[in-house]
């Protein structure tokens, strides 16, 4: 057995992945059982853009996670391969490698590998619809191109769902964004990278008056974040006062956030604060995509919530409302625009693989 293991290892000349992170950004934490390699990222990229990963070959991961929109999609909620409505807005895949938690509201998913099982195998709603078709779908990857990709990644040409998930996770981990004008200003020390109005907006963002940074703090603009030098739990779920259906804090039964997972009443309406990196291109906003623009998002936070949600007893104490002049609001939006990373949005290595490579 040992001999087999050694031979297998020799057959797997995988190339360690180089992160090439700017400005001394710490590397993310990668599970020991799925180390990053160039070959797994390449395989994952091919799979991410391939409709073969969908039961009826109508969708790929990229259907709901489009690079131009920071790997989100410009619609309120996603639709699965068989027409099922997915209740939540597709999250942007930006620096997911740094996430402390995954999906909009779940405490139990330790890593991307676990999260990926949801869009692949979920039955209610059906997303990619693999369940019940897994063996037949694996046969789709018995092509020369995929055998080469699997062989390069794992030292064996055979496809398996474990290998598919690890490769997809590796590709998603490679989607890192730290080259926005804000990064150039903050971490690159380039005083010219931001306009005076963007700096004014930044001052508002980091002020106790607006409280934005309490939930959207840290290098990734979300407390739901960890990296190689930051492993501490930061309790990143918040009720932002969007709903209050019964006067006692209830969110719509279709989605009550973390409470749906934990069954704890106090977790009602709690969702993970997403990163604000590339937020300007990932509209619409909130877990249900119910807010169309950043301007409306700011209006909601300025009002201390939305409608009856303002009095939601489970609302975060930081959602208490604030006054903002029109000029200040424009400055704040300008600052949020400075978090858009054009290199990330147009990086060809994140896009579909060249024709004929898979």
């Amino acid at each position, binding site marked *: 057995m040992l001999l087999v293991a050694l031979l297998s290892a020799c057959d797997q000349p995988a190339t360690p992945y180089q992160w090439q992170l700017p400005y001394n950004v710490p590397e993310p934490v990668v599970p020991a059982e799925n180390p990053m390699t160039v070959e797994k990222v390449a395989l994952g990229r091919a799979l991410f853009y391939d409709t073969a990963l969908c039961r009826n070959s109508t969708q790929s991961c990229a259907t709901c996670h489009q690079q131009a929109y920071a790997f989100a999609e410009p619609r309120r909620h996603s639709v699965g391969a068989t027409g099922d409505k997915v209740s939540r807005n597709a999250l942007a895949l930006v620096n997911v490698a740094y996430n402390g938690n995954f999906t909009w509201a779940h405490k139990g998913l330790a890593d991307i590998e676990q999260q990926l099982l949801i869009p692949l195998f979920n039955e209610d709603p059906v997303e990619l619809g693999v369940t019940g078709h897994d063996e037949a779908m694996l046969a789709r990857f018995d092509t020369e191109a995929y055998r080469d990709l699997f062989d390069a990644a794992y030292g064996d040409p055979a496809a398996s769902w474990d290998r598919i998930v690890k490769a997809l996770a590796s590709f998603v981990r490679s989607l890192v964004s730290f080259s926005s004008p804000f990064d150039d200003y903050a*971490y690159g020390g380039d005083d010219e990278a931001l306009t005076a109005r963007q700096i004014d907006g*930044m001052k508002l963002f*980091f002020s106790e008056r607006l409280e934005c*940074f309490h939930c959207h*703090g*840290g290098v990734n603009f979300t*407390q739901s974040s960890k990296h190689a030098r930051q*492993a501490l739990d930061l*309790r990143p779920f918040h009720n932002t006062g969007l709903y209050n259906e019964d006067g006692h804090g209830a969110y719509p039964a279709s989605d009550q956030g973390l409470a749906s997972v934990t069954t704890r009443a106090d977790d009602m309406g709690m969702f993970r604060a997403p990163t604000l990196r590339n937020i300007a291109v990932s509209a619409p906003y909130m877990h249900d995509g119910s807010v169309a623009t950043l301007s409306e998002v700011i209006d909601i936070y300025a009002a201390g919530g939305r409608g009856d949600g303002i009095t939601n007893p489970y609302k975060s104490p930081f959602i*208490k409302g604030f006054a903002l002049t029109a000029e200040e609001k424009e400055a704040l939006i300008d600052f949020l625009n400075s978090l858009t990373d054009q290199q990330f949005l147009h990086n060809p290595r994140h896009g579909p693989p060249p024709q004929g490579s898979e």
Partner: protein
Amino acid sequence: MAISKIRLAALVAIVLLGASGCGPLTDSRKAGEIPVHLSGVNDSVCPMTMSVSNRDWQINYLGVYVSNPEVRIDGRWQALNFQKNDWQTKKVALLKFHGMCEETPEGNTRLLLDASEKLMKLATNLRFTIGLPFEQNHANPLSQPSPLNDSSMFWSWQAGHKFIRLDLTNPDTQHNFSYHLGSIGCESDAPVRPPEKACAFTNRVEMILPMTQLDTELDLSLSVSTMVAQVALPQTEGCKFDPPSEGVCKQLLHNLLHRPWLDWE
């Protein structure tokens, strides 16, 4: 503007316990380990709860930075280091208290000094700072080691870290109270630029506690109700980033300086 504080707490009980050598402190602990317990707080529930002026309050968040530990031996101060781990650098430790929330780590409820039992037995005082030194307080968060990169305890390069963060909620009225202590009046071009000189109010609090020679098994007790003594919690949202010279902020800083909110148990 460093703020000094010397208190001589009652030590009789500790002396007796230490002298007996067979008191309740039978659990083995590492040399230099100082557990920190919350007093008057029910930490067996999530979130933690306590009572202040006959009102119940939830403690949603409680974190405290401690830095630059020293002991006094034979009348001279001797600098110590913390043992490095996720919660401590050589000179900085973060205390963080969570209730028994599911899947939630316990936080950090101890200081772990890099000091031998022999050294601790010789000490007559323990001195440390509540807060962070200027350099660490305003350094690039990307290059900071844990626990200095805890974004929930960080404002910005300009303002630095929260030295103390206390967030309370009254479960009956949903009234919120927060005390975020940190340096105030820090001047720089932008929140992501560090100040070049000390802030107008540094707001660091120096603590000096007496130590009983020969007794190395000391526990600290942190009293939240003492931190907020003489503050009408239901009538104020607290003190966040405000000057310490007036109102609630003045009273809260007074409590840190003159009341036994952190003392030997």
